[in-house]
């Protein structure tokens, strides 16, 4: 493991660089109401994020705010691939579909293709981060429950990874109350959790079984996303890819859908708190990004765009076009539910129209994207019918838009993906290649990769990155028609 770049760069930086005149393209927009700092947010039973109303670390600024310096389109800034070897401990049991050992396959394929330079690797360092950013999204009691679950229900023993609790806070003035809570609760008054208590937090369920050290690896995931968020702000125009993250189903007080902590939401909250930026979150997982949407449902500085299989049958059931945000954030939450068996062409055409409209309307400073790859035809949990051609095109589209509209500040996260051998490695190879400015058209899967993994795989591994054309879906016309209705409605909302 390389020493973290972050560890060396911990001195306080100015919150925003000297700002140039806003370009004319931005001056004409209608400005939304001021940021909604400190407003309670939905999701979870007790509405406010951590405990009580969160403090307001930054005063709302008048619009239009200064923006970050733009970067010429396509200038090829650097990118980093954030990874930590301990991430593969994020697995529940052998029969569980979510298994981060898939990251080993991805890294192996990337290496076999020679796609990652040593200086592009960045390891998150959990000892460099305290829990405060986590507690800005998740309740302190919930975090205690996760810790206790990972220790077998006992409370009060020190964390396995030293330095993950209570170190000097970096975000001066932010969340002091939450930090005090952490100090007070676990160490002075150990409160054991019964199995029923844990179930109330979604822990020990069929979807999120308990495993030893679950807090530590889930926190490592959060730190990975935070490391990426800080990296893209410290290195204007550079991109960060963290395939271990994107666990978008977790709620402030509840684990759900294989997700313990919502690293995407923690990273976005950190970007809001520390940099006061406008964040566009793009979620192309086949499942609705319900946790992230709920956490920022009343936050006008965050637009979420989720394109997913309709929730009529599929988990989590939400993500209807009518879910549009609340209060000052009404209109900043965008949902594109697609018919089962939607294929590449239809999907990509819809995604492009929606994203262009979303960028035009919202004008983000930063892009955070979630790249679940479970909409592939092979994925066992969903019913969308994409091929890796879509997974080549999605990052390219987001990359172009992030460069054009957001000065290249782009953090790409992983997400779902349950065909571990055939889909995940190839799809995320396309993602990294795009972010690293070495886009791939197609390539043979190297023999060294096949030799190593074919004997472990239950199915024949594909020989090329790009899938050959699949036979067309029989009801294609009807599927297209229904998707067109959804698209029309979404575009009307974004006008």
């Amino acid at each position, binding site marked *: 493991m390389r020493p973290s770049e972050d560890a060396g760069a911990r001195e306080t930086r100015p919150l925003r660089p000297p700002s140039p005149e806003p370009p004319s393209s931005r001056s004409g927009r209608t400005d939304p109401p001021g940021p909604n700092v400190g407003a309670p947010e939905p999701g979870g039973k007790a509405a406010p994020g951590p405990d009580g109303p969160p403090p307001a670390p930054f005063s709302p600024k008048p619009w239009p705010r200064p923006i970050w310096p733009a970067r010429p389109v396509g200038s090829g800034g650097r990118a980093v691939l954030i990874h930590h070897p301990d991430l593969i401990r994020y697995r529940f049991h052998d*029969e*569980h*579909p979510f298994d981060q050992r898939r990251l080993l396959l991805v890294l192996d394929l990337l290496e076999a293709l020679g796609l990652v330079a040593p200086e592009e690797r960045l390891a998150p360092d959990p000892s460099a981060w305290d829990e405060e950013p986590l507690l800005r999204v998740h309740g302190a009691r919930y975090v205690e429950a996760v810790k206790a679950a990972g220790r077998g229900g006992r409370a009060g023993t020190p964390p396995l990874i030293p330095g993950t609790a209570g170190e000097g806070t970096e975000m001066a003035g932010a969340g002091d109350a939450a930090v005090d809570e952490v100090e007070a609760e676990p160490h002075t008054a150990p409160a054991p959790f019964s199995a029923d208590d844990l179930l109330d937090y979604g822990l020990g*369920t*069929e*979807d999120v079984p308990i495993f030893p050290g679950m807090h530590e690896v889930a926190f490592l995931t959060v730190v990975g996303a935070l490391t990426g968020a800080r990296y893209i702000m410290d290195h204007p125009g550079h991109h960060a890819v963290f395939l271990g993250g994107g666990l978008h*189903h977790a709620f402030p007080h509840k684990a*759900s*859908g*294989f997700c313990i902590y919502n690293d995407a939401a923690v990273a976005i909250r950190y970007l809001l708190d520390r940099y006061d930026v406008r964040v566009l979150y793009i979620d192309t997982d086949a*499942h609705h990004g*319900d946790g992230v949407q709920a956490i920022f449902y009343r936050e006008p500085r965050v637009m979420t765009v989720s394109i997913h299989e309709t*929730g*009529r*049958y*599929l*988990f*989590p*059931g*939400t993500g209807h076009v009518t879910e549009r945000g609340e209060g000052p954030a009404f209109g900043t939450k965008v949902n594109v539910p697609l018919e089962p*068996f939607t294929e590449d062409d239809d999907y990509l055409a819809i995604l492009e129209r929606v994203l262009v409209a979303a960028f035009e309307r919202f004008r983000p400073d930063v892009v955070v994207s979630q790249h679940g790859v479970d909409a592939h*035809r*092979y994925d*066992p*949990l969903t*019913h*969308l*019918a994409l091929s890796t051609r879509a997974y080549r095109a999605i990052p390219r589209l987001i990359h172009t838009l992030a460069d054009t509209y957001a000065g290249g500040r782009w953090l790409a996260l992983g997400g779902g993906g*349950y065909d571990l051998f055939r889909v995940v490695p190839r799809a995320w190879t396309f993602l990294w290649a795009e972010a690293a400015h070495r886009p791939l058209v197609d390539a043979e899967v190297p023999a060294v990769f096949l030799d190593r993994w074919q004997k472990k795989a239950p*199915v024949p591994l594909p020989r090329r990155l790009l899938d050959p054309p*699949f*036979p067309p*879906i*029989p*009801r294609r016309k009807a599927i297209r028609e229904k998707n067109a209705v959804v698209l029309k409605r979404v575009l009307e909302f974004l006008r």
Partner: protein
Amino acid sequence: MLVADIMHTPVITASRTATIREALELLHRHRIRHLPIVDGEGRLFGIVTDRDLREAVPSRLAVDEALLARLAEPVETIVRREVITTHPGEFVEEAAQLMRQHKIGCLPVIADDAIVGIVTHSDLLSALITLLGVDAPSTRLEVEVPDRVGMIADLTAIFKQQGINIVSLFVYQSPEPGRRRAAIRARTMDPRRLIAAIRAAGFVVRWPKLPDDRPEGGKGPA
């Protein structure tokens, strides 16, 4: 689900001595279309709708003495006395039947001679969403079961044995005679083992399909 669970309360009402103008203002201010009229003791006297009120008043274009005089008349001159009402303990579906049968848009809710609430079309739509909609992250399964004693018990026992919580369940008639369909929302993202177990018990899972149902592991409507 009872009328008491979905009714609007408190109710905006007007006294029978209020003027037509006051009644119109109440409808506008509260953005409602139905105004129960009460007598001096708070008992339901009748009801006026926005249409009754608009029809009672001459066109706004003809601003003249007649219009102003009409607006000043008490609302009891146009009130409908025969009001169809419901009770807080009545079932929601009974209230819906009543409204459909009589082609009316609202039902005042009466208990002990007092008006305690009101149910309108939009309350019934909200109830429909609550009954059939999603309030917890979950997967929906549609299972066809024989219309016989104990079938739902057998079916739900499988969920218990798999350790998967049911967040909602409703059973409705199947187009196939002698069968019923159960629509179940289950708190899991991976229903594969559950579906396999339901099938093994002899039920027909109409949706979702398992990957094995599809040609060459790929997806296609099987």
